[in-house]
């Protein structure tokens, strides 16, 4: 394992950025420039690892030993590479977007906001590059604590209650289940290092593996698998940039990434397939998939609808892992990237609508496409990706997942995937349709509407530029990902070399 100190640089840059942001709070322009510079630099360093990893190298870096034989250490492998690219890459548009959002919305405590953001990215990269379960757990908890101030940002009672739900569920699952799972793994195998092919083969039989998998899957509470999903809709009380990056990208992806990494490098895909330890998980994930989609249909609040959509989409990834086939796992991994790009677009749009038109409910969005064509256009592209329609990236990951299901002769899950596509069409398409096709509501015709009168006629009232540019960029990103799906597939293929 070649040692590469750049890994420490990649992980450490966001942390240094957080300190820089915290100390330049009095000069907003300087502060935000520093944030953007850090984001670009971090992405640059992370990108530098792509070629070596594609070539088959696995660079690593050891920080220091904590327990005898268990250090805090990093090692880059394909899944981690992908997650790191997603997190660090999407930090850039989110940074731009949050500058626009915070300024337009007049948010307080912006320094704390940006600094906690940076720390969260630091934690996400630590998770992505972790070499063993201890490192992963360490950064996982840092992520929980660094995002708490972001969730409770507004300081209102509702925010504080949401923060308590957030912390309560995430801490209970991580300490009660995940830590227990890690220690049981240590007990069984005397190591907690991630290794290709898994470490449990021969050390655990079917029932033990099933129980252990349950502990890991429910322990990764950030993956929002039912019934531990309540924190995600509760966290929607946070400002939209927080929802966008953290809950569509970094935090929830940390959860499913943990599950994928454990499945591939602790259990091993073949071990799971042999022992059938993940069969039950397929049904649990499928249930979450469908149930969350149905709940999303019933939600009028836009962010709540998107939140439940996320819960459903995360279950796709868990299903992919549970299928215990190469295509399933790779499809799940790919979906990390596809869903991230699509969902962040949708959240950016939701925030733009809030900032420009002060609307939060789906029922209020009739005809808004005329006032905000760029925003709703991006929303349409993002929706197509989430639904899984070409030419958006989401199409590829869904196809792979269906292939994975078929590979394992689990045809029922192919049906589940199709059904959920229909459901996502049901909760996303009407928004786009009504925004563009329906006429704008007359202020007099809807006396119960929000206070801001909507100009009749299609006057352009887009969100500020700093908001619109990022969301258009990510929308285009969805299209780009469609064409670069093969590159992602090549990257991830290495985790399951086989026929």
């Amino acid at each position, binding site marked *: 394992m070649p040692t590469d100190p750049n890994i420490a640089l990649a992980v450490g840059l966001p942390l240094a950025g957080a300190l820089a942001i915290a100390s330049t709070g009095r000069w907003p322009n300087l502060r935000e420039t520093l944030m953007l510079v850090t984001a670009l630099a971090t992405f640059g360093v992370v990108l530098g690892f792509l070629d070596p990893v594609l070539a088959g190298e696995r660079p690593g870096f050891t920080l220091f030993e*904590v*327990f005898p034989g268990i250090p805090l250490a990093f090692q880059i492998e394909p899944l981690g590479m992908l997650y790191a690219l997603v997190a660090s890459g999407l930090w850039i548009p989110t940074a731009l977007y949050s500058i626009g959002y915070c300024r337009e919305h007049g948010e307080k405590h912006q320094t704390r906001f940006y600094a906690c953001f940076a720390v969260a990215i630091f934690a996400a990269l630590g998770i992505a590059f972790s070499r063993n379960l201890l490192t992963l757990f*360490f950064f996982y908890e840092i992520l929980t604590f660094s995002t708490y101030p972001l969730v409770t940002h507004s*300081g209102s009672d509702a925010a504080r209650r949401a923060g308590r739900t957030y912390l309560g569920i995430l801490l209970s699952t991580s*300490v*009660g289940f995940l830590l*227990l799972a890690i*220690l*049981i793994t240590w007990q069984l195998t005397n190591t907690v290092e991630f290794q290709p092919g898994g470490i449990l083969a021969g050390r655990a039989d079917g029932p033990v593996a099933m129980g252990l998998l349950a502990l890991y899957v429910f322990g990764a509470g950030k993956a929002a698998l039912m019934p531990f999903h309540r924190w995600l809709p509760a966290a929607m009380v946070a400002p939209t940039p927080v929802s966008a990056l953290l809950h569509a990208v970094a935090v929830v992806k940390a959860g499913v990434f943990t599950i994928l990494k454990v499945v591939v490098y602790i259990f091993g895909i073949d071990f799971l397939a042999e022992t059938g330890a993940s069969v039950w998980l397929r049904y649990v994930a499928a249930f979450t998939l469908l149930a969350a989609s149905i709940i999303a249909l019933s939600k009028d609040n836009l962010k709540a609808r998107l939140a439940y959509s996320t819960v459903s989409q995360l279950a796709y990834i868990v299903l992919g892992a549970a299928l215990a086939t190469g295509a399933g796992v790779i499809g799940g991994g790919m979906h990390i990237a596809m869903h991230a790009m699509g969902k962040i677009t949708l959240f950016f749009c939701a925030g733009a609508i809030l900032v420009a038109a002060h609307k939060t409910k789906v029922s209020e969005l009739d005809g808004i496409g005329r006032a905000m064509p760029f925003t709703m256009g991006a929303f349409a592209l993002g929706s197509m990706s989430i639904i899984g329609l070409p030419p958006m990236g989401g199409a590829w990951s869904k196809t792979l997942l269906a292939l994975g299901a078929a590979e394992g002769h689990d045809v029922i899950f192919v049906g589940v995937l199709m059904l959920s596509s229909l459901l996502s069409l049901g909760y996303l398409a009407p928004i786009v349709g009504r925004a563009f096709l329906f006429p704008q509501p007359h202020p007099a015709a809807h006396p119960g509407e929000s206070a801001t009168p909507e100009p009749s006629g299609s006057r352009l009232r887009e969100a500020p530029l700093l908001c619109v540019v990022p969301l258009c960029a990510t929308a285009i990103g969805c299209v780009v990902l469609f064409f670069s799906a093969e590159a992602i597939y090549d990257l991830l293929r290495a985790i399951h070399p086989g026929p």
Partner: protein
Amino acid sequence: MSEHLPALQVVLPLVSAALCLVLRRAFVVRVFATAVAWACFAIALALLARVEAGGPISYALGGWAPPLGIEYRVDSLNAYVLVIVTAIAAAVFPFPLRGREVRIPRSRHFLFYASLLLALTGLLGIAITGDLFNVFVFLEISSLAAYTLVSLGRDRRALSAAFSYLVMGSLGAGFILIGIGLAYQMTGTLNMADLAVRLDPVRDTRTVWMAFAFLIVGTGIKLAVFPLHQWLPNAYTYAPSLVAGFLSATATKVAFYFLARLVFTVFGVAFAFESMGLGAVLLPASVAALFVGSIAAAYQTDLKRLLAYSSIAQIGYMTLGLALLEERALTGSLLHLFNHALIKGGLFLAAGCVVFRLRSSALADMRGLARRMPLTAMAIVVGGLGLVGVPGTAGFVSKWYLVGGALEGGHLLVAFLLLASSLVAAIYVWKVVEVMIARDGPEPEVRCEAPASMWVPTWALIGASLYFGLQPQWSIGIASQAARSLLAGAP
């Protein structure tokens, strides 16, 4: 000089306590006591180094050879405990004694420090001696000093708390004395190593059973293991924070050390666990302590009382590791001796900072503390995270070993309960954190941090808990070595 180090460890604070009566000025006495504590710390480190290099040290007090003479016997476990106690003393003694917490005038502070040094003497003596009756003597020295120190709290409830403490503590000491007497009767020796040998042929007599029972119950009272913990909450709540910090970090730890000595060295694992069923009693009691302590803490409205109940739960962790009888679990217990001492000592000192500025330790008065006293608030947060066992803190290290040890012995339920109790701890820790970061605190929102003489010792301990959370090699090394030698039954 250096071959008399074991004796010096005890004699130095003892003589210094007497010297305090001569030095009348409050500030001089405080500096003197701190210097003595630092000297004791240096001695303890020297002893530890010597034990690590050359094996257990045996020192005959007064030149009288054991087993008739009193022997000071230092092995890795002792040395570890000595270092813990002196380190805490070295960090806590510089903490200033302000009128808000103590009911004696400045002209009488020298008496306070004399008692404090006597308490230190007693605790060090218990840890270092190899003679059973000597343990009783030092136990009473430290306990009497502790009763005095607790009674000096400002609130009048400190007096009734001290009286209860005195009654229960004396009962416990009485039981220990009975146990010693019965053991002496059967073997004719008071030396612990010798007892281990001589108890062997008479192990299955009723007298020895009774001796064991009395000793364990008596030690249990001193250790405040559930359900013998009733004296602790009031004593730690109303004692001056300096005293609470010192005692919570040392007195119960030394009692645990004595319990471990009795169980592993004197009576032996086979006798204690198989003939007497210690595990069957201690394991449920420990688990009960975990939950009773944590749940009670969650209901508290006063910071110091919350910390006191939290201590009961943390003592449960220590006894749990002992009851599980696995090397990893026992290592976890011994690690927790050290880690909890750092965390709880630091937290009580932070409470002292709070009381100094706010004149109250009620949680309701602490609203918005994060803005008014950021350093203190940060210390409380970090210490609290250590109590929960968040990775990166010392508490996590002990939990890792405790839960790992439970799993090693196949006790899956116990492992889960251990982790569940951390979650309850998270509830009361977060309660405190939420109060501190609340926006609607009382005016004025002026920065009024505690003086440096207060937050420096606080952060010394809290900072150490962070350091030993990330770099626990030293503590893990010693704790596992001590655990191994205990389980092997080496006298």
